[in-house]
């Protein structure tokens, strides 16, 4: 049985008439890397601030390690927080910054020094003890911020878009490192971000938020493979989202008509969408394959023909826009050994597996 570290029970936050967070319930298991993902204004930062104790929920309950946190100030919650701008103390050295939490607990000097060197070791920043934050690069400041937050050994670490101020290369390297740190320490990480790639790369679990509510929650592969709403499908990865309505169906398959109704696709029946509720269908670009390359597909597929409208060569693969017979346009990502043969105007045979056509209610 997994222990629950942080629990939100129908938590809402209202500023005036504005409902920023609307009746959210979450259970965050111990030792997991959980991302709260959403566009700006979705309520993710407010949720984080409520967990940290900087803001009180308008209603509902927040439990940390089983205890209700109502009236518990941030300084007594024993959780770590990494800020977006790092918020390092400019007048303190790296060692003083990292040791701050232990010092506030009144730990003896040797224990503080010990904790500082352990924390700096886990972010691989030994030898920087006597530098001031201003003398460090952005990536190093980021590591100091992480070290400072983990030094007092909190059971939960909150991270508020900690990589958004770094350049792309560094960001990608830090993703791997953060994940390693989290696994080494076995600490629960709650990672707030608007960057879906970041969330996909690091998380054990993703909570997608939209307009103050949880749009979908689950493992990264589940969220990517079976998005439940067109918002999630659009926000996580690239996708073709097409208005669709159900036609006829069996237990296992459902025929849906797309666009003006001239194109009909067969979709494998999902778990939860009733035929009369189907409004959209989502097809990932990499699921739109060339028929000859799809010869190896060992599952039933829709066969279509279309014309390539536009091709962008991205090296490892091609991004193509196809006008499929029947009047629908599909984005497609093609990995092929014969890429050079494809160009605008080519007629191509396409295959889309039944299971790759995801039906959505909204």
């Amino acid at each position: 049985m997994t222990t629950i570290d942080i629990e939100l029970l129908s938590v809402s936050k209202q500023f005036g008439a504005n409902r920023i967070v609307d009746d959210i319930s979450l259970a965050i298991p111990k030792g997991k890397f959980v991302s709260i993902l959403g566009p700006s204004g979705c309520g993710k930062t407010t949720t984080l601030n409520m967990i940290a104790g900087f803001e009180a929920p308008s209603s509902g309950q927040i439990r940390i390690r089983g205890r209700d946190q109502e009236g518990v100030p941030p300084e007594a919650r024993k959780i770590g927080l990494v800020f977006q701008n790092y918020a390092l103390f400019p007048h303190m050295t790296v060692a003083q910054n990292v040791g701050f939490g232990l010092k506030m607990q009144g730990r003896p000097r040797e224990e503080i020094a010990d904790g500082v060197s352990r924390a700096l070791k886990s972010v691989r920043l030994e030898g920087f003890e006597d530098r001031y934050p201003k003398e460090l690069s952005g990536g190093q400041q980021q590591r100091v911020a992480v070290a400072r937050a983990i030094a007092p050994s909190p059971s939960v670490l909150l991270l508020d878009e900690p990589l958004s101020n770094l350049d792309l290369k560094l960001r990608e390297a830090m993703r791997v490192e953060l994940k390693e740190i989290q696994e080494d320490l076995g600490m629960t990480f709650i990672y707030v971000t608007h960057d879906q790639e970041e969330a996909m790369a690091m998380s054990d679990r993703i909570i997608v938020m939209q307009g103050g509510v949880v749009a979908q929650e689950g493992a990264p592969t589940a969220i990517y493979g079976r998005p439940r709403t067109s918002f999630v499908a659009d926000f996580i990865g690239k996708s073709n989202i097409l208005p669709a309505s159900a036609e006829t169906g069996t237990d296992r398959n459902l025929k849906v008509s797309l666009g003006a109704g001239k194109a009909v696709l067969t979709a494998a029946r999902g778990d939860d969408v009733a035929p009369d509720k189907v409004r959209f269908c989502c097809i990932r670009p990499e699921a739109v394959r060339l028929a000859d390359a799809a010869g190896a597909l060992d599952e039933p597929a829709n066969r279509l023909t279309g014309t390539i409208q536009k091709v962008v060569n991205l090296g490892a693969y091609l991004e193509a826009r196809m006008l499929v017979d029947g009047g629908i346009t599909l984005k497609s990502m093609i990995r092929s050994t014969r890429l050079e043969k494809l160009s605008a105007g080519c007629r191509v045979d396409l295959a889309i597996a039944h299971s790759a056509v995801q039906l959505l209610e909204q």
Partner: protein
Amino acid sequence: MNRLLTYLFRMALAAILAFITLPLVVVVAASFSPTSAVTFLPSEWTLQWYTALWDSRWLDPFLLSVELAVIVSLASGLLGVLGAYSVAYARCPGHTAIMAFLLSPMSVPQIVKGVAIVLFLSSIGLYDLLGTPGLVMAHIILTLPYVVRMAATAMFGFDKRLDRAARILGASVTQRIRYVLLPLIRSGLFSGMTFAFIISFNNIPLSVFLVRPGQTTLPITVINHLEYSLDPVLAAVNVASLLFILGAIILFEKIGGFSAQFHGGSK
């Protein structure tokens, strides 16, 4: 054309600097003059006026002025930081009005303030407070706006995320003030306290209403002396005060480090 402008600009700058410093040069030169008439560039040099300063006639007022300046700068520093905290940091209700009130003594002429304080003290029967206690109070009123202003500016610029960072790391409110807020506003606070020290030490218009006979501050003693004679001992007093103030500024700067750049990492 550009070179001409640069040249003119430098000339103007030199003229301004000369205008500011030349009177001081005259005073310094006069303080070494052997005759009792003040002369610029005396033919002989002497230290007799400086030795004449080692006399209770000058030492007592000097010590009173020092005592006053020390008490006033410390008290103004304490009160100023408290005022700035509630006004600029905690933004208590009505903080703009309170700030305006705290700064208001700056806009009242010192002579008016002096008269008002004397009248107030005598009308409530506390005429005995004239002398050192009255001087301390009056000088605090006079210097508080400078300290509040400087400390408030430093606190307005304080990044409150640092307070949050300290808070989530377990720091109580007193720990946050001691370890994060105060060190970061220290330079602002100390430059305010330096102003308070100098203003109090040099003050004449307010002090003149509040000193007791036989218990006067140094500037008042100089003014009194000036009424009867203009001799080089005054020049020596001025040079000595100048050196003292300079020493005090250096000391404040050593403690407060207000000219030092912080190793500021986060903006």
